[in-house]
């Protein structure tokens, strides 16, 4: 199924790169709303609008493939996706695309690295929260919290070792019939990373892809002075504020992902309940307003931002300091900022 999409392309400005002789590159921007239930924005440099539009279409096509494969709510004709695996839990192994196996293996690796704080087999619990949140958003007056009984009843169906991957046969099987995969904390970042690598190979070497605020930079940008790192802002959790960002980072070939309480939430009896669920308390984690991660791999940044959100500041700092080229920034509930040792070097002065 080939789908033609409207991609708005905007010519932002024209820049001469004097460093490379008479070559002229222009800055363009495009965006679309169709994938991952969010806004995807592409910014980058190309010799002309057509070249940029072609890159945007390639990015769209690749992201769309990931979007369909990693979807847990919808079926697509002729596609076995994560939902198909869930639908066949306890029934039979499902033959899947290699991109699903790669994601699940990466996810298991991330879960081990973060001491079981980003478990893709946690879907049985997360789906309860998802249902209550969706109902609560649609009908705020009768919004309710799930009962602890209900949540605890599902915890025993979240053992990630029961996700059986057969690489030879390209199948995935959930041994526990009540187990559900939920790749929401990792799939968007992973797909962004894979797509960024792919498009860079196609020659798009100065750009940036943001899938719903999961930002992956490719190379540098240009201005009158020559090449320059991308300036990526970090969302202010206080959206009432006139100040949209709390910091601006300078990034080159790096990813920045922020997880925050303001992203997706619903309100019960005047209290906000956001979507990042602590695997221990089974409730929304209440330690921070947001956690931002900078590292090369956007999939890892996505997984870390969620898992660090669920850890204490000390646990999180210990983990970040043990990882190479990985930095974190916390905004505590009282508005205090905390940084890992190398984070502040990225902040634009």
């Amino acid at each position, binding site marked *: 199924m080939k789908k033609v999409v409207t991609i708005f392309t905007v010519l932002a400005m024209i820049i001469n790169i004097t460093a490379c002789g008479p070559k002229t590159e222009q800055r363009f921007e495009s965006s679309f709303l169709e994938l991952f239930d969010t806004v995807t924005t592409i910014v980058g440099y190309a010799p002309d609008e057509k070249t940029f539009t072609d890159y945007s279409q390639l990015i769209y096509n690749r992201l769309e493939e990931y979007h369909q494969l990693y979807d847990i709510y919808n079926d697509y004709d002729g596609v076995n996706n994560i939902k198909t695996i869930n639908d066949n839990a306890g029934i039979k192994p499902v033959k899947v695309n290699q991109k699903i196996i790669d994601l699940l293996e990466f996810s298991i690796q991330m879960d081990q690295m973060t001491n079981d704080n980003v478990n893709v087999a946690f879907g049985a619990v997360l789906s309860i929260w998802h249902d209550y949140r969706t109902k609560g958003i649609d009908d705020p007056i009768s919004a309710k919290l799930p009962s602890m009984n209900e949540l605890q009843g599902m915890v025993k169906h979240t053992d990630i070792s029961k996700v059986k991957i057969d690489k030879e046969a390209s199948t995935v099987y959930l041994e526990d019939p009540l187990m559900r995969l939920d790749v929401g904390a990792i799939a968007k970042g992973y797909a962004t990373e894979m797509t960024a690598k792919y498009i860079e190979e196609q020659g798009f070497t100065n750009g940036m892809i943001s899938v719903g605020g999961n930002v992956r930079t490719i190379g540098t940008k240009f201005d009158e002075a020559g090449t320059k790192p991308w300036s990526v802002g970090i969302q202010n959790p206080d959206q009432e504020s006139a100040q949209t960002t709390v910091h*601006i980072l300078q990034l080159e070939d790096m990813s920045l992902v922020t997880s*925050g309480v303001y992203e997706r939430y619903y309100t019960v009896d005047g209290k906000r309940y956001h979507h990042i669920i602590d695997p221990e308390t089974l409730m929304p984690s209440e330690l921070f307003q947001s956690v931002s991660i900078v590292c090369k791999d956007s999939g890892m940044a996505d997984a870390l931002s969620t898992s660090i959100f669920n850890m204490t500041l000390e646990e999180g700092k210990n983990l970040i300091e043990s990882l190479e080229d990985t930095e974190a920034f916390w905004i505590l509930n009282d508005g205090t900022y905390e940084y890992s040792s190398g984070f502040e070097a990225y902040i634009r002065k």
Partner: protein
Amino acid sequence: MMEPMNIVRVLKHISGSSGCKMLKRNDVIMTGIVLLIALVSLGFFFLNKKEGSAVVITVNGKIYQQIELEQNNTIKIEQENGDYNEVVIQDGYVWMTDADCPDKLCVKHNKIHYNHETIVCLPHKVVVEIIGGEENTVDIIAK
């Protein structure tokens, strides 16, 4: 803002002098030249403003309305199925004041002001974008 002040000054000069004596030929020529320069630059000023900074509203990828950023305004975006969003433009800033979408994320979004900043209402497929505004010092925002 220099141009309108020029005009006021020139006009005052004419009325002040016409009361007691005839205008000299050179005065008229000079006034004409000054007026012409003022009008031309005023024209450029407005032309640039119109092209330079606009609020573009798209629904489902199609342009719904394009309005000036510099003019205070309230726009109600109404779709055939009854969905609506209300956008306010004031003093060069744009924000969503109301919408009947379930999550209201668009209403909670910060005010936008800079070139290429957007507010998106995903459920209604509404995008409000600033075109040609003041250049932002940020390329994108992680959230």
